């Protein structure tokens, strides 16, 4: 039945674009909302009988999807961030036609991401990566303003390079294995681990994924795309698209295909540490709120990669946990940025100030998100960072652990600066008449804040039931 996560949205998008456009334009938002809520409920109900069964044999849709615990976590993140982006779109895109097109693209992006996390075939993975990426390119430019077009163009160019790299690597792997399924490739790689051809294929594929995930030094496109994108698109892009297409894929490919060779671990640790430090320093110097969040995103993704690079059970589960947390709190910060953009008309932090007085919900949820990002207990971000740091320590990477701890202080520094400039203190001149963000944005930020607090407070339950079982990806 996991095929439903692919089929229902697909049939939905096609139906929405049949005649009766007027009616469809009205129902599009509700259809998408029900779709994402349905996905959230199904994933969190955690019923094994549902996931194991396929559609009726011999039917027109004869496709196998695979679901494990990592997939479940990703499906949950995809649906919740898409829902937040949908709510922000309702408030931020006033033109009905544009909003309708945006919702359609949001659903196709969700199909793409659902596909990415459910396939076990490297070529199908590539196809769905493209689906998600193409939808994201267009969503960025929904307002057709110049910075957004420029940001999208940079994203397209670098994403195309990443795609070419992955496709060449898939070609090499097909040559080696004779098939594109994960099982066949994994068997072929483990039977000749010293082959130069295999190493070349691995190196090219990893570089492609680093570009997709926006890691240092492959991050050139990310700040422009995040900061120039239309507000609902930046929520989706920062919250989940790059996480699924870059980081999830990296985790899946390394654990299912390449395995943790010492070289792979070393590269991951180095790239992760560089991203953490450079991302945090770059974030310190930003004046534009969304740009600062973009650099912060690079830094946080670095934590995921460095934890994953240890290759231990604790490190990998910590990385997956941080991936989930980061998807939630970074989308929350971008939802808040959207609220500020809508009400104050700018995201330049020098011109903002004291917004907590007029926008209490936005100010409070933003405080929760920034505390979670900087790793303050008992919020969700604290637990995942602690697990990653313990994993680094246990694996003997003490220098990397020290980097992770020290940069955590930097994270707190730039986020406190952000919070103080935008939300605390006296209200900035010209902003006295701002009011609380529209209801849709408030609902989105309250949902995301509730998840951040809930996961943090009920950490033992969440960790044991949802996160720890992810270790199955390490045991072949």
């Amino acid at each position, binding site marked *: 039945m996991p095929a439903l996560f692919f089929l229902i949205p697909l049939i939905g998008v096609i139906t929405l674009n049949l005649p009766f456009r007027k009616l469809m334009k009205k129902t599009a938002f509700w259809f998408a909302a029900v779709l994402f809520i349905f996905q959230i409920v199904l994933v969190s109900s955690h019923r094994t009988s549902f996931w194991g069964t396929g559609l009726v044999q011999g039917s027109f*849709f004869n496709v196998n999807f695979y679901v494990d615990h990592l997939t479940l976590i990703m499906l949950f993140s995809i649906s919740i961030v898409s829902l937040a982006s949908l709510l922000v779109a309702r408030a931020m895109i006033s033109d009905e036609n544009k909003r309708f097109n945006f919702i359609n693209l949001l659903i196709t992006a969700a199909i793409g991401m659902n596909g990415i996390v459910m396939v076990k075939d490297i*070529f199908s993975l590539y196809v769905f990566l493209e689906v998600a990426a193409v939808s994201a390119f267009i969503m960025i430019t929904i307002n057709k303003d110049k910075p957004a077009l420029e940001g999208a163009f940079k994203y397209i160019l670098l994403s195309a390079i990443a795609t070419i790299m992955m496709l060449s690597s898939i070609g090499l792997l097909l040559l080696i294995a004779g098939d594109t399924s994960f099982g066949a490739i994994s068997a072929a790689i483990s039977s000749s681990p010293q082959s130069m*051809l295999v190493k070349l294929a691995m190196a090219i594929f990893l570089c492609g994924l680093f570009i997709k995930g926006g890691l240092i030094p492959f991050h050139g496109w990310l700040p422009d795309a995040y900061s120039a994108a239309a507000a609902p698109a930046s929520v989706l892009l920062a919250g989940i698209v790059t996480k699924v297409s870059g980081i999830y894929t990296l985790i899946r490919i390394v654990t299912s295909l390449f395995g943790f060779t010492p070289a792979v671990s070393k590269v991951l640790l180095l790239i992760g540490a560089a991203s953490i430090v450079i991302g945090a320093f770059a974030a310190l110097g930003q004046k534009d709120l969304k740009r600062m969040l973009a650099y912060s995103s690079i830094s946080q993704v670095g934590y995921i990669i460095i934890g994953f690079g240890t290759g231990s059970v604790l490190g990998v589960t910590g990385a997956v946990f941080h991936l989930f947390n980061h998807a939630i709190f970074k989308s929350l910060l971008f939802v808040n940025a959207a609220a500020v953009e809508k009400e104050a008309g700018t995201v330049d932090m020098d011109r903002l100030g004291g917004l907590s007085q007029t926008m209490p919900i936005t100010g409070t949820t933003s405080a929760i998100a920034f505390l979670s990002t900087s790793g303050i207990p008992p919020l969700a971000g604290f637990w995942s960072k602690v697990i990653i740091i313990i994993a680094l320590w246990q694996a003997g990477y003490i220098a990397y652990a020290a980097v992770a701890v020290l940069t955590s202080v930097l994270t707190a520094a730039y986020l406190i600066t952000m919070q103080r400039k935008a939300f605390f203190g006296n209200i900035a001149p010209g902003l006295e008449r701002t009011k609380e963000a529209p209801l849709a944005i408030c609902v989105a930020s309250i949902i995301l804040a509730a998840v951040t607090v809930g996961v943090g407070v009920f950490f033992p339950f969440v960790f044991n039931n949802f996160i720890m079982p992810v270790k199955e990806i390490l045991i072949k």
Partner: protein
Amino acid sequence: MTIDLILLVMMTIAALWAVMARSLLKAAIALAVTSAVVTIIMFRLASPLAAVFELSVCTGLITAIFVSAISLTRPLTHAQTIAMSKNKFRRYWYLPVIMVIAAAALFLLKIKVDVPLPQVLAIDDVRNIMWNLRQLDMYGQIVLILAGSFGIVILFRESDKDGS
């Protein structure tokens, strides 16, 4: 073997021409030539199906779309073209250098096929490949085309407010 080498060199030259050409129209034609050479290479590698797709889509359809899009633009004057290409060279001189270094690195690494290669399957029925073996990818294509059509609507349809 010699023919393959000649074809590969031709492909590289055509691809370079596509990137370096001063006019967009010539670049589009050069791209079509590149695809045509790739088609021949695919035929020689016993992949007629891929070759037919390459020929019809990349050489035919895409070139037609490019040329029709270019015909809608206003061409630059000769002086502007020369200024543009000088500017382009100043900004991107390092790209060919990187390419040469990468090629040299790959050559020096002496990457050979050093793994036992699996037997290639006999050519299967196209219908079977498309609708049974790679069914999911075909559905993915459908979603991709849908997303692309929304893109065209968003980027190219003028809204009423724009006045045209």
